[in-house]
């Protein structure tokens, strides 16, 4: 049964069909969210919310489109939105802290965690660059397909991918140079 068949069944109230769709895209969703957010817990939250949002908007899905790309677009937008909100909130708290100076307690120096190491090449990249790099390298997407997920022109998607590859190369070179 195709994705679009399952969507049609969901729209007539067969919840089991949505479960099947979730099972098909659970791993894909988590992979894309982890790569954009560079954090596993946030990625789980994003997937949970995106599956609900997709279900609530199934009637707006254009059956001529690929469900996978539609869902990826919805999920990546959701992740980018989470990053923007987090940045706004951090900015707000930062402003408050500047207004009310308090003693700064430096966290103790620790060795990088497993998560720091896992995401060491992704975190320096911008979220859209991470998305483009992931879709290109792990999903085999062309710039046109990346553009349909990011909601931009293929040229802009190409620039995101290009910048991601340049930054990654620089990081890899730095790592090699740092080796004794």
């Amino acid at each position, binding site marked *: 049964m195709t994705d679009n068949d399952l969507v049609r069944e969901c729209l007539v109230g067969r919840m089991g069909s949505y*479960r099947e769709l979730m099972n098909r895209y*659970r791993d894909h969703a988590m992979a894309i969210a982890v*790569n954009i957010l560079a954090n596993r817990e946030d990625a789980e939250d994003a997937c*949970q919310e995106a599956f609900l949002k997709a279900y609530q908007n199934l009637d707006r899905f254009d059956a001529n489109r690929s469900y996978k790309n539609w869902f990826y677009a919805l999920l990546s937008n959701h992740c980018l939105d989470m990053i923007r909100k987090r940045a706004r909130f951090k900015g707000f708290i930062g402003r408050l802290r500047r207004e009310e100076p308090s003693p700064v307690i430096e966290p103790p120096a620790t060795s990088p965690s497993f998560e720091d190491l896992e995401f060491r*090449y992704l975190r320096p990249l911008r979220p859209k660059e991470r998305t483009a790099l992931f879709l290109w*390298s*792990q999903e085999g997407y062309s710039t046109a397909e990346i553009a349909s997920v990011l909601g931009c022109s293929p040229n802009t998607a*190409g*620039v995101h991918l290009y910048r991601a*590859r340049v930054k990654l190369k620089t990081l890899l070179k730095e790592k090699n140079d740092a080796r004794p």
Partner: protein
Amino acid sequence: MPDHKSRIDESGDDLATLEEARRATISREKLGGVKDFWPEFMVAVGEKKSRKDVWMGARPALKWAMGAAGLLVVIGGGILVPKLLRRGSLPAAVAKTAVIFRIDSVKIDDKPAQAFIFQTQDQGSTFVWVEKQL
């Protein structure tokens, strides 16, 4: 496409290769076990449906009453109680244990919004962060 991009050779040393990009990103295989989102999804769908049913099933007069009650709780919680506390007119036992701030519902552009309440270390400050629903 910017000029600087076209000046760099696709096969040059300046761009990470497909293989390097694959190693730097997290693949589905690297993820390991992924949690089942279904149980929480069903709870969320059920909650949204029941909230909607209660609201849609209510008569217009009842809707007004529910809305007004919610507003009163916000006004009461957000303005009156702190005022009384400042004046010291709440009994000490109540002042110590009272839930000072409560928000039942918040709307932005007439759509339900999310509210987060942050109690700072300063007892006199509480931040309410309101965001549009995704």
